[in-house]
Every structure is written in C-alpha cells, then in structure tokens.
C-alpha cells in the first residue's frame, strides 16, 4: 500500500480549499494531519475518496492515478473513510450497518462472516447490540460503529475524519485505544485527521500541520513544537 499526493489543489468557485498539497502514506504507517477548523482537513480526505472534485494535482494509490475514479471503485481498491459526523445509517441495525461496510466483498459470504467476527472482537460490546438500530446508539458507540463499518471491507488504507469530534474526553480515549490497537496489532495504514492534537500526535508516526489549505509543517511528532501548533490554532503564544 502506498498513497502519494502530488501538488493537489481543490477550488470551488473562487474559494481555494486546498493548495499544492504533497503528502504520502506508506505501508503500515499512521500519518496524522492536524490543523484548526476550516484548514481543509476534511476536504483532503474527501478528495482522496472522490467525494469532491480535484482542481489540479494527482492522487496516486499503489502508483496508479485514481483522480478520476468514482468513489465506489476507490473503495473496491482498498480505501475506506470514517467520515466526520460518523454518518452511520440510523434506521439500519448495527449488523446491517456492518454488512453495508462489507458491500464490496459481499459475494464472499465466508469472508464477510470473518470480518464481522474480527470487528466484534475489536468491539465486544457490539455483540449484544447487533439488532439495535444505529440511530439508538450513543455518540461514542456510533463512532465505534463507523470505524467498525469501515473496517468491514478489509481496507488497506483507513482514513479517519475527526473521530473525536463531539465526544466526551473519556470516550475520546476509548476511540484512540482502538486506533492504537489497529496500528500496533493489526498494522493497518491510516491517515488520521483530528482536532485533538495531543491524541493525534501520540498515535502518529508522522504528522502534517495544515493551515488555511496549505501544509505548513511536517515531521515526526516529537519534531513538531507545541508552540507552533498552538500558534496555528489559537494565533497566540502560550
């Protein structure tokens, strides 16, 4: 697995959302992107999934240009996104949500069952709630379900958009425990976008700081100075 983004720009009308982004994710790597609201983090992930049109630049996945592909083909290739705001299907049961996550491998029933067992091992509480409607879960549970659902297709690269948004601190820790497990025990490559800088940096191998649509800093977490990040967010030195 290798994702390489070259000189990516996204413009909508007169609005520039992303400008000349260069970014890579290698096999087994967890890459974090942090930055304040409106910096373009979600746009970046949407562009990778084909939910938004790219104005210029290239998105290379395993050395193949995927810019023009429809979203469902990108999912078939092994990309999966846990979208911001979770977007679970509220009127489908937990099990049905998971089955939809396995939509691209639906022909292989055995594989689907294997994946269900895999995510249920990851989220044991889900076992008892398989027949509940997704909309009746709590916010934290919905977030876990969204992650579990994305894992169902056995993706090679998992994109996570604001997995901690709107969750209580204790739940945020749970979410990040899952992300660590995915990193350390499953070894899945991830591109993680979050407002929670500390958590993001803790789990990332490398990180980028995005500000107003441009990548302003890049490096290993320990190389990124706290001051720079706080300044990017709050505009003040603390």
């Amino acid at each position: 697995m290798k994702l390489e983004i070259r000189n990516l720009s996204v413009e909508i009308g007169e609005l520039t959302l992303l400008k000349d982004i260069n970014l890579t994710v290698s096999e087994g790597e967890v890459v974090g992107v942090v930055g304040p609201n409106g910096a373009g983090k979600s746009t970046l992930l949407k562009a990778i999934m084909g939910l938004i049109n790219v104005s210029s630049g290239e998105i290379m996945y395993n050395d193949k240009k995927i810019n023009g592909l429809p979203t469902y083909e990108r999912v078939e290739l092994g990309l999966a996104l846990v979208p911001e705001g979770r977007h679970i299907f509220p009127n489908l049961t937990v099990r049905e949500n998971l089955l939809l996550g396995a939509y691209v491998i639906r022909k292989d029933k055995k594989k689907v069952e294997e994946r269900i067992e895999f995510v249920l091992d990851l989220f044991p509480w889900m076992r008892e709630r398989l027949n509940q409607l997704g909309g009746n879960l709590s916010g934290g549970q919905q977030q876990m379900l969204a992650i579990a659902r994305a894992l169902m297709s056995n993706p090679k690269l998992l994109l996570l958009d604001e997995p901690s948004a709107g969750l209580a601190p204790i739940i945020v820790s749970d979410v990040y425990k899952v992300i660590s497990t995915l990193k350390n025990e499953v070894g899945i490559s991830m591109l993680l976008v979050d407002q929670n800088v500390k958590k993001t940096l803790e789990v990332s191998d490398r990180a980028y700081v995005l500000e107003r649509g441009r990548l302003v800093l890049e490096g290993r977490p320990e190389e990124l100075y706290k001051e720079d990040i706080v300044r990017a967010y709050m505009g003040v030195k603390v």
Partner: protein
Amino acid sequence: MMTDILNVRGITKRFGGLVALNKVTMDVHEGEILGLMGPNGSGKTTLVNVISGIYKADSGQVIYMGRDVTNLPPHKRVELGIARTFQTPRPFNSLTVLENVMMPILHFGHEPDVRGTAYKLLEFVGLEKYAESPIGKLNLAMRKKLDLARALGTKPKILMIDEIAAGLSEGEVNDMANLLMSIRDSGVTLLVIEHVIFFLRKLCDRVVVLDEGVKIAEGDVEEVIRMQEVISAYIGEVIE
C-alpha cells in the same frame, strides 16, 4: 452601569439523545461586540437558532430588553430588533443585489425612500457598484456582506453573525472586521460566532466559550484564549 440587551437563561436544547445546549446562561451588554467561540459542534449555531426563534428550546428563557421572547416566532423577534446572518449566505437569487437589501426595508416600511435607504446600506458595506447585478456576480465575501446589509435593513438592535470569517482570505477577514466595528459604532450590539481566533481578538470586547453545549469560559479575549480549558477544548488536550 452597563445595561443588558439580551439575557439567555438556562437554555437547554436536545436533538434526540444529543444535548446540543446544556443550561447555557449568558448576557449580552448593550453596545458591545461579544464573541461566541468554541470548537465545531459545540452548540454555537444552535444557540443562535434558539435566540432567533428557529429552534424552540426545551427549557430556559430568552429575555430581550427585559421582555421574555422565548415563545415568539422568528419574524416577530426580527420586528423587535433581533437579527442574524447565516453561516452560508442565503441571498434571494431571483432578486438583484439592491432588491435583496430592499426586502426588509420594504417590509418594515419605516423608511419613505426604500431604494435610497437600501443603496446607502450597500454603500456602507461597499457593494454599491453591484446594486443592479444579479447575485451570481458576487463572490463569497461579497455575498456575506450582502447578508449583513440585508440584516441591517431590519434596523436591528442586536445582530448575530454566524461565522462570517470562514472561507475568507486574510485580507478579506480584516476588511470584514473593520466593517463589523463600524456597524457596532452605528449603535448595533453584535454577537459574533466564530472560530477564527485572530478575528475575535481583533474585534471582541468579551467572549463566551462553548464546548459540547456547555459554557466553559467567559471574559476578556486575551485572557480566555490563554485559559487551559479553552485551549484543550480547541486542540483536544493540553500538550505537555
């Protein structure tokens, strides 16, 4: 002694199981620019929707100039002087720029020269050159200014401005801040929702910070943005 133009008393608003606002209480002083800040999903826009009457609060009161307006429909509140703009501008696309601004002036009928008054408002926000243009000719910053001009057409006493800096370039943000200050100088109290912080620092006398529907801080801008709770609300947790 400052008088309050608006008091929000213990507002709670739930959507299904989600508590969007949890017993929020705050006061807006007459003539100030109050910043309302907080990360995404903290309930800022919900609060504006409750104050403007688009949402009905589950509990709590909205007191405007000493009067309980909690149960008034949105258009009645506008009549009393509570106006707002939207996060994404919502112009009337089948009307020209000038006609957009004429709408509220026509409606309230407190000006004999509707066109002239509308034109003056366009001049005030710097869009007079586009008076006869269709909306399609305006870029984002201009559409936001048009929203402002239209809201000013209702002769508000308090104007709530929802994320006007989002999506604008740095130059445009400065320009917008100056415009808002001149609106305040004309005697309108402003409640400014924003998460672009340098915009708030430039503009606000005071800020209120919401996080997950709860008010976590209130006070002077420079003090508030250095508070640990606020920083951690914004960037998750404090980095050691």
